[in-house]
């Protein structure tokens, strides 16, 4: 193996680490097993981050590194290609997996299997990010899905198992359509590699072109289902809110974004697909708005966060689709793609932070009803927390998602909206921002001191507060702050990767311009106003109606069918 093939390490190292962990689980005593798990995380999650950084200059100079597995000819063999997009995806996955894993040590599923699953997930995501072959993509997506189902069900609670079952049925059956689509493309072009398909699709007749488009849609819609844009997001709420907290952070932070960036490659297969992107950007903006409305209506703290995941993925989809609309080779397209990537980075960090801190808080309170819990700090102190770090970390996460400077959410949202300023997306996303603030004011109330409990703590806390919880929260909070402060430098790094020319269009002034800061102020005021309206009688009546809307098992398939029918009729007519 020569130095050029180093880029396969993010796939093989986690797999190696997972096998070490599973081996130690079967043969070694408990103490050694724990040690092996730490070694596994070190090899499988930390080492790939270093390797990815080492590969950064290669990517800038050469554009991409590629290999055909098993040295077959490119027409038959599976091609793996490491480019800037895969670099970002691997970095995102491993960076978030580590704090989530640390959190799980004391609270969540602290099992060797859990460690192994996180490692396997990291490996499959690395593979997804590099593969240039449809069938390989299918296999990797299915493995990623399988890991996700097991992770959700690892809580052993019956509602979690049911949520995982629901998700599995829905996404596995949609992957059958993915298989059908890849069958059609193989039939039409005689190949499964992206490059070959693109080449052959150009030469087909008009009738075959239409057939190829339907096949491509069959590939795209199941992937969009994993991304959970609006009509296809029925599975997400239960899956994300019923899962263990660490898994929720992983699911919201990573698993809904990776498929989206894979779609960049699928969209490059045929130029006709570009007609779809403008529509998708509107769907994304609508998702951002509707998601936030539903979030405002929830009483379950984790469900509220899950709806926010949908809303935030709407933001990302908007920027992503507009990037494809302009073409990712153009400067504006590349900038929009960078904005989408940056927002998914900061969303992963602050949503991880929120899920973990809210998870800790609701566990301490013994309930998840936002209307009932008050005085979480008191309860946490009873559990042995000396310093209200959970609350501070929650507030950092909340300020970040509300897009308040200097946290990363402000920078990524500003960048994202900066390039869509003239279109209607901007208005929709701004309204969604107001809703975000209102719903997080609602969620923050659980930290307000309770009226009932006023006596000071007399008895000493029975147990020590686990350090691992604080450590994971601190890591994420620091990441959130640092990516905010060094946003400018991070953009520089991303620009180097995605824009080949030396021009630097992003200036520091776009963030702290007067209009932006004023807009932030207005949004906050609007959020407070909306919160007051929502807690009053007429507002809460409407929200209660929204909350009582239930999705059924078959509704999800209906949404799936409608999406395919709608998109294909849009493309063909």
């Amino acid at each position, binding site marked *: 193996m020569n130095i050029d093939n180093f880029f396969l390490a993010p796939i093989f190292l986690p797999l190696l680490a997972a096998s070490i962990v599973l081996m130690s689980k079967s043969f070694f005593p408990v103490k050694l097993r724990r040690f092996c798990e730490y070694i596994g995380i070190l090899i499988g999650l930390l080492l790939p981050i270093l390797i990815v950084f080492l590969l950064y200059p290669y990517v800038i100079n050469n554009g991409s590194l590629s290999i055909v597995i098993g040295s077959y000819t490119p027409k*038959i063999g599976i091609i793996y290609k490491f480019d800037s997009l895969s670099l970002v995806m691997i970095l995102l996955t491993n960076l978030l997996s580590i704090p989530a894993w640390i959190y799980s040590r004391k609270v969540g599923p602290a099992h060797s299997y859990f460690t192994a699953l996180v490692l396997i997930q990291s490996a499959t995501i690395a593979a997804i990010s590099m593969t240039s072959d449809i*069938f390989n993509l*299918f*296999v990797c997506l*299915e*493995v990623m899905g*399988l890991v996700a*189902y*097991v992770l959700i*069900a690892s809580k*052993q609670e*019956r*509602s979690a*198992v*049911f949520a*995982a*079952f629901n998700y*599995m*049925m829905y996404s*596995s*059956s949609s992957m*059958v359509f993915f*298989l*059908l689509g890849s*069958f059609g493309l*193989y*039939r039409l072009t005689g190949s*499964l590699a992206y490059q070959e398909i693109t080449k052959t699709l150009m030469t087909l007749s008009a009738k075959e072109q239409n057939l190829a488009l339907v096949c491509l849609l069959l590939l795209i819609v199941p992937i969009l289902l994993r991304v959970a844009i609006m009509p296809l997001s029925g599975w997400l709420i239960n899956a994300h809110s019923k899962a263990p907290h660490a898994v929720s952070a992983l699911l919201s932070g990573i698993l809904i974004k990776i498929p989206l960036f894979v779609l960049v490659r699928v969209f490059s297969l045929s130029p006709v697909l570009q007609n779809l992107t403008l529509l998708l950007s509107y769907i994304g903006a609508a998702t951002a708005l509707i998601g936030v409305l539903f979030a405002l209506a929830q009483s*379950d703290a984790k469900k509220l966060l899950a709806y926010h995941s949908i809303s935030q993925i709407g933001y990302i989809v908007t920027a992503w689709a507009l990037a494809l609309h302009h073409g990712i080779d153009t400067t504006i397209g590349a900038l929009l793609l960078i904005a989408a990537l940056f927002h998914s980075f900061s969303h992963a960090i602050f949503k991880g932070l929120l899920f973990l801190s809210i998870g800790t808080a609701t566990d301490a309170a013994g*309930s*998840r*009803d936002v209307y009932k819990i008050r005085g979480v700090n008191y309860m946490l102190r009873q559990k042995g927390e000396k310093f209200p770090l959970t609350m501070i970390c929650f507030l950092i996460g909340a300020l970040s998602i509300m897009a308040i400077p200097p946290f990363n959410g402000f920078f990524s949202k500003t960048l994202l909206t900066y390039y869509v300023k003239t279109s209607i997306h901007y208005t929709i996303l701004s309204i969604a921002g107001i809703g975000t603030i209102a719903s997080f004011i609602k969620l923050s109330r659980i930290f307000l001191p309770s009226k009932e409990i006023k006596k000071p703590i007399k008895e000493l806390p029975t147990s020590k507060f686990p350090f691992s919880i604080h450590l994971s929260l601190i890591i994420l909070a620091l990441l959130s702050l640092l990516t905010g402060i060094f946003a400018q430098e991070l953009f520089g790094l991303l620009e180097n990767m995605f824009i080949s020319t030396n021009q630097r269009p992003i200036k520091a002034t776009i963030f702290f311009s007067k209009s932006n800061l004023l807009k932030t102020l207005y949004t906050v005021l609007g959020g407070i106003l909306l919160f007051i309206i929502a807690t009053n009688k007429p507002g809460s009546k409407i929200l209660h109606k929204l909350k009582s809307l239930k999705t059924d*098992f*078959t509704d999800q*398939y209906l949404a799936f069918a409608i999406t395919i029918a709608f998109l294909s009729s849009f493309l063909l007519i």
Partner: protein
Amino acid sequence: MLIERVLIFLIFITGFIGLISMKNIIKKIIGLNLLNSAVVLLFILEASRIGDKAPILNDKIQNIVDPIPQALMLTAIVIGVCVTALSLAMSVRLYKTTGSLDITIIKERLENEY
């Protein structure tokens, strides 16, 4: 060729109806399996359009089938087995904890649970 395709389509539709309209979760899993098998059969059928001999090249056999779809389907079957095993394991757990295999009853019993 046409009749095989119609039959495969029928299997597909049967699986889909089973997946959607059946209340029993075991039947849903069987429906998913049927869906998967239909696509596998479609691939295999398509591969045999150009020949029907096993693709062993050193015997100088003519009329071999297209080997790539067969290789692909081997993988797809393995994934299908994984999904089936996992879903059956989950349905066992659901049955043990809720006492029912009917999806509407399970949903009702989980309704007020956080």
